[in-house]
């Protein structure tokens, strides 16, 4: 049988990959998708712990993460749409007026 470590390491790796996406991509949609990837990596740890500790609480937590992720994606995409209407661009590095 697989030990819990393996699931955790897998999810850490996926999480780190998601972080790379957030940091280096220059497309807001892909950044948002990378965030979804990170959330799912966390979900994986929840489920793994739930299984290995024998508690459904982890699964319930995933349920809530999904609800929050859905809300986050919806709002994020709505913001992206309105930003795109104004700037004709999805590059976050072109949107840096909000300083000083």
């Amino acid at each position, binding site marked *: 049988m697989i030990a819990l470590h393996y699931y955790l390491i897998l999810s850490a790796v996926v999480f*780190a990959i998601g*972080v*790379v996406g957030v940091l*280096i991509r220059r*497309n807001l949609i892909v950044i948002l998708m990378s965030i979804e990837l990170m959330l799912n990596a966390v979900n994986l740890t929840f489920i793994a712990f739930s299984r290995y500790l024998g508690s459904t609480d982890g699964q*319930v937590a995933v349920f809530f993460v999904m609800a929050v992720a859905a809300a986050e994606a919806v*709002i994020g995409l709505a913001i992206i749409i309105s930003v795109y209407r104004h700037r004709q661009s999805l590059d976050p590095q072109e949107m840096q007026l909000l300083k000083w």
Partner: protein
Amino acid sequence: MDTASLIFYLLATLLVIASLLVVFLRNVVHCALALVSALLLIAVLFVTLQAPMVGVLQVMVYAGAIMVLFLFVIMLLNPAALERQRGLWWGFGAMLALMLAGVLVPLVMTNDLPADPVAATELFGSPEMLAKSLFSDFVLPFEIASVLLLVAIIGAVVLAKREN
């Protein structure tokens, strides 16, 4: 090596590959499809971890709704230009992420974690059990989540609506 391990390694490898594709493919639609496959793989992992309910929800919510929404927005905006990448920043980000993995993995290894799952009943991960937990211990967060979703709906409508 037993079947379960084999399945895990297969899924894990595919998942890592799909994740990498999400981040490194240049075409947004390809990224989205890679993410869909990653999410489906995670759903399968959930099922192998005796969480079929959550697995199906994962498919319905993530693959069936959220990612379709992503694709919908991609097609609506249809951003033609492929993004340019800046080498220096690219390397810096990748390095940071490597460091993150380099910290997280030893952190996991140093902890004393159970090697074997707890023997689970037939009911574990079933809709009944999840629902009982959700509607007794977690009723308040559940209601708050519903309010959150309502707020998100209204917010999205307000944000994406054209002025006038």
